[in-house]
C-alpha cells in the first residue's frame, strides 16, 4: 500500500484513495463541498485545493488519488490557504444573508468553512446579489423545499438522484452564474429517499418540509439510535430537545443503510408527539380504569398470570416493537407459568429498500424486531395460541388471562373488532406507550417507554443484531419494558427483579445458541451478523 505524507503525517493508504479520504485517515480535515464518498467525483467546488510537492498548480484533493509512494501534501500552505479564502469569498458574494431564518444555521458548510477559511468582511458591497426570481421557497416535491438563492451549485443533489436513488428528478440547468438545480414541471422529487438530498446539501438550499423551522440545531441533543419504521434496521441519529424529538437523520453504517434512510422512517417519531400517551398505571375497579401505583398494577397482573385456572389458558402476545431483551423476559414469564401460548405479531408493510454498495438492505415488515423477538423465544409451543389466532380469529375467548406486551400493533390496536376479540379474555393486561382503545379496554394498563426512552437490541431483516441506547428518560410514570417485565418476573423469582437490558441480553446469549458468545457491552457499533449462525432445533 502506498505511503503518503499529509501535513507532516505519514500513513499508508489503499492505492487509489483520494486525498480527502487519505487526509481524514490522518486526522486532517480538508474542506470540501461537492465530494461525497458515495457520489461520483466531479471536482467542481474547488474548495479542497491542496499543494502537492512537485506539481506547479494546486490540486483538487478529491480527484487526486494516491497511487505510489512518496506523495507529499500540504493542506495549509500559503497558496492553499489563499485558495480556500478565495473560494469562500466567491461563494459568499452572491449568497443571501439568510442565517437568521435559515434551517441550516449551526450545521452549515458555508458557516463552518467561512469561519475557518474565509474572511470576516465582504468586498461585494455595492452590487446587487444574484437572485433566482420566485425560487426562494419552492417545493421540489412533498418532502423537500428549495431556496435557489442559497444554492452553491455543488450538484450533490443532482448526482444523488442520478446515481443513488436512480430516479433522475433533479437536473442541472443553464450555464455560468445562472446555473441552477431543479425539477421539471410535473415530475417532482418524490422517491422513497427524497429527503436524503437535504442531508447531503451543505447549505440551506434544500430543507426538509418536515423539519422546516422546527428547531435551532444547537438546541438539539443528538443520540445514536435505530429507526423503527420497518425491519431494515437503518441506523439513525435521534435529535431531540428535552425529550421532544425534532428529527431523525441517517447515521452511517456500511453494513446496513450506508449514508441513507427513507422518507417514511424519518417521520416515525411524529406519532410519539401526536398520539395520546399512557402516563400512569391503571387498574380496573368497578368497571372503570383508575390510576394506581406500580405496585398495585404489577400485583394485580402477577395474581392474574400465575393463577392456574381451569376455565382458560394464560397467553402472552408481543409486537414487533419489542426489543430482544423485552421479548426474552416475556418468554421467561411464559415459561415460568408453563404456558405454550406466546407469540409475536407484526403487520407486513410495504417493502422499503435502501441502496448500499454491497447490494442494499430492505425491510418488509412494519416493525423493527419480529425476528429478534422470535429468536429470543417468543414462539408458540405445541398447540399454542399465536397472534393470528388471538387477533384475527377470536382465540382470546379461550384465555383466562391475556397479557399483551407490548401493544404497538399499529392499526390493530385501534381496530374495534380486534379490541373486541381480545377483550374476550377474562383478564386482559396491556403494556404499551400509546393510549389506545385496546389499552382502554384492559383490566390492567402498564405505561411503557417509547423507543427513544429505552435501550435494547433489534435483529433486522438481514439477521443483523444491533444495539441502541436510550435518548432521554420516559416521562411521568412510564417505564422501559425491561424494567416492568423484570419487576413482574421478580415476583416469581427475586433474582429477576434487578435485571436490566444488559443483563437480560447476556442471559439470553447464554441460553439461545444464535446469540452465543455475545456480550452486551462488547457489541460492535455496526452490529453483528447472525446470519451464518445455526438455528437451534425446533426454532423459527
Amino acid at each position: 500500500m502506498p505511503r503518503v505524507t499529509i501535513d507532516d503525517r505519514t500513513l499508508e493508504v489503499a492505492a487509489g484513495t483520494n486525498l480527502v479520504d487519505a487526509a481524514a485517515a490522518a486526522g486532517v480535515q480538508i474542506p470540501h463541498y461537492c465530494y461525497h464518498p458515495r457520489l461520483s467525483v466531479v471536482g467542481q467546488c474547488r474548495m479542497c485545493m491542496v499543494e502537492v510537492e512537485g506539481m506547479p498548480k494546486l490540486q483538487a484533493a478529491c480527484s487526486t488519488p494516491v497511487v505510489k509512494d512518496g506523495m507529499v501534501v500540504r493542506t495549509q500552505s500559503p497558496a492553499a490557504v489563499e485558495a480556500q479564502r478565495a473560494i469562500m469569498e466567491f461563494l459568499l458574494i452572491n449568497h443571501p444573508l439568510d442565517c437568521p431564518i435559515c434551517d441550516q444555521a449551526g450545521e452549515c458548510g458555508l458557516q463552518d468553512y467561512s469561519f475557518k477559511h474565509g474572511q470576516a468582511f465582504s468586498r461585494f458591497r455595492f452590487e446587487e446579489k444574484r437572485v433566482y426570481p420566485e425560487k426562494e421557497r419552492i417545493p421540489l416535491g412533498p418532502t423537500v423545499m428549495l431556496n435557489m438563492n442559497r444554492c452553491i451549485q455543488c450538484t450533490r443533489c443532482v448526482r444523488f438522484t442520478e446515481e443513488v436513488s436512480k430516479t433522475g428528478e433533479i437536473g442541472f440547468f443553464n450555464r455560468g452564474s445562472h446555473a441552477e438545480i431543479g425539477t421539471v414541471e410535473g415530475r417532482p422529487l418524490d422517491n422513497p429517499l427524497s429527503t436524503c438530498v437535504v442531508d447531503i446539501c451543505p447549505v440551506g438550499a434544500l430543507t426538509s418540509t418536515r423539519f422546516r423551522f422546527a428547531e435551532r440545531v444547537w438546541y438539539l441533543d443528538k443520540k445514536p439510535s435505530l429507526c423503527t419504521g420497518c425491519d431494515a434496521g437503518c441506523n439513525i441519529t435521534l435529535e431531540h430537545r428535552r425529550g421532544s424529538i425534532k428529527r431523525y437523520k441517517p447515521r452511517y453504517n456500511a453494513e446496513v443503510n450506508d449514508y441513507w434512510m427513507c422518507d417514511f422512517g424519518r417521520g416515525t417519531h411524529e406519532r410519539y408527539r401526536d398520539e395520546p400517551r399512557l402516563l400512569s398505571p391503571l387498574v380496573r375497579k368497578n368497571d372503570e380504569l383508575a390510576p394506581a401505583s406500580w405496585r398495585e398494577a404489577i400485583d394485580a397482573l402477577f395474581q392474574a398470570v400465575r393463577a392456574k385456572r381451569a376455565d382458560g389458558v394464560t397467553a402472552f402476545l408481543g409486537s414487533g416493537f419489542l426489543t430482544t431483551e423485552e421479548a426474552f423476559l416475556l418468554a421467561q414469564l411464559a415459561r415460568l407459568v408453563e404456558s405454550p401460548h406466546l407469540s409475536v405479531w407484526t403487520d407486513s408493510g410495504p417493502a422499503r429498500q435502501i441502496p448500499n454498495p454491497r447490494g442494499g438492505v430492505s425491510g418488509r415488515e412494519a416493525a423493527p424486531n419480529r425476528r429478534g423477538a422470535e429468536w429470543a423465544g417468543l414462539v408458540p409451543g405445541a398447540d399454542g395460541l399465536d397472534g393470528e389466532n388471538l387477533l384475527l380469529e377470536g382465540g382470546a375467548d379461550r384465555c383466562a388471562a391475556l397479557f399483551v406486551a407490548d401493544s404497538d400493533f399499529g392499526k390493530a390496536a385501534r381496530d374495534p373488532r380486534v379490541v373486541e376479540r381480545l377483550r374476550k379474555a377474562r383478564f386482559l393486561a396491556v403494556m404499551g406507550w400509546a393510549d389506545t382503545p385496546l389499552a382502554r379496554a384492559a383490566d390492567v394498563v402498564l405505561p411503557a417507554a417509547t423507543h427513544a426512552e429505552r435501550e435494547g437490541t433489534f435483529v433486522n431483516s438481514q439477521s443483523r443484531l444491533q444495539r441502541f441506547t436510550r435518548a432521554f428518560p420516559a416521562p411521568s410514570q412510564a417505564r422501559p419494558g425491561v424494567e416492568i417485565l423484570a419487576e413482574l418476573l421478580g415476583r416469581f423469582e427475586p433474582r429477576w427483579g434487578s435485571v436490566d437490558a444488559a443483563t437480560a441480553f447476556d442471559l439470553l446469549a447464554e441460553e439461545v445458541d444464535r446469540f452465543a458468545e455475545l456480550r452486551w457491552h462488547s457489541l460492535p457499533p455496526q452490529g453483528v451478523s447472525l446470519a451464518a449462525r445455526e438455528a437451534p432445533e425446533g426454532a423459527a
Partner: protein
Amino acid sequence: MSSPATPVALPAEVVARIDELRPRYPTEEALLLPALHLAQAANGGWLSAESMAAVAELLHLPVARVAGVVSFYDMFHPQPVGRHRIRLCTNLSCQLRGANELAVLLRHELGVEKGVVTPDGRASWVSFECLGSCDTAPMAMIDDAYHENLTPDQLRRILAELD
C-alpha cells in the same frame, strides 16, 4: 404542480431519422443533441416541454436530464420563437464594426426587445456570441443562413423580406 407533459409522439420522420443515426454511436445517450436538433426543427424552431419529454422517452433518459441539456446550449430554445430567428453577433469584432447600431435598429424595426416574439409571430431576435464570421462583420444568422457584411440599409431590406 400541473401533470407531467404527456410525451407527444415525435413526427414519424424525426423518429426515423434518429433511428438512422443510431449505428453511429456506441451509446443511446449520444443521440441526444442530434435528436434535439431534429425535434426542434420539426416544432417551429423551439422545444416544448412535450417535445423534450418525447425525446427523453425515445432515448430512455430522465426528463430532467434532457431539460438540463436543452438549457445549456444557446441554439436550443425552450420558449417559442418567431417564424424567423435572428441571431445578431455582438461579440468584439462585430461590435468594432457597428453591431451595436444594428441592435438598436433591430429593436426599432421589429418593435420588440431581445428574446421577445413580434405580435404577428413573424420574428424574434437575440444577440449572439461570435459566429465565426468576423471578417465579414457585422453579421447576423437568420434561420439557417449567415447574412454578412451588413449595413443598416441591408438589414432593413432583409427584415422587410421576412414573411
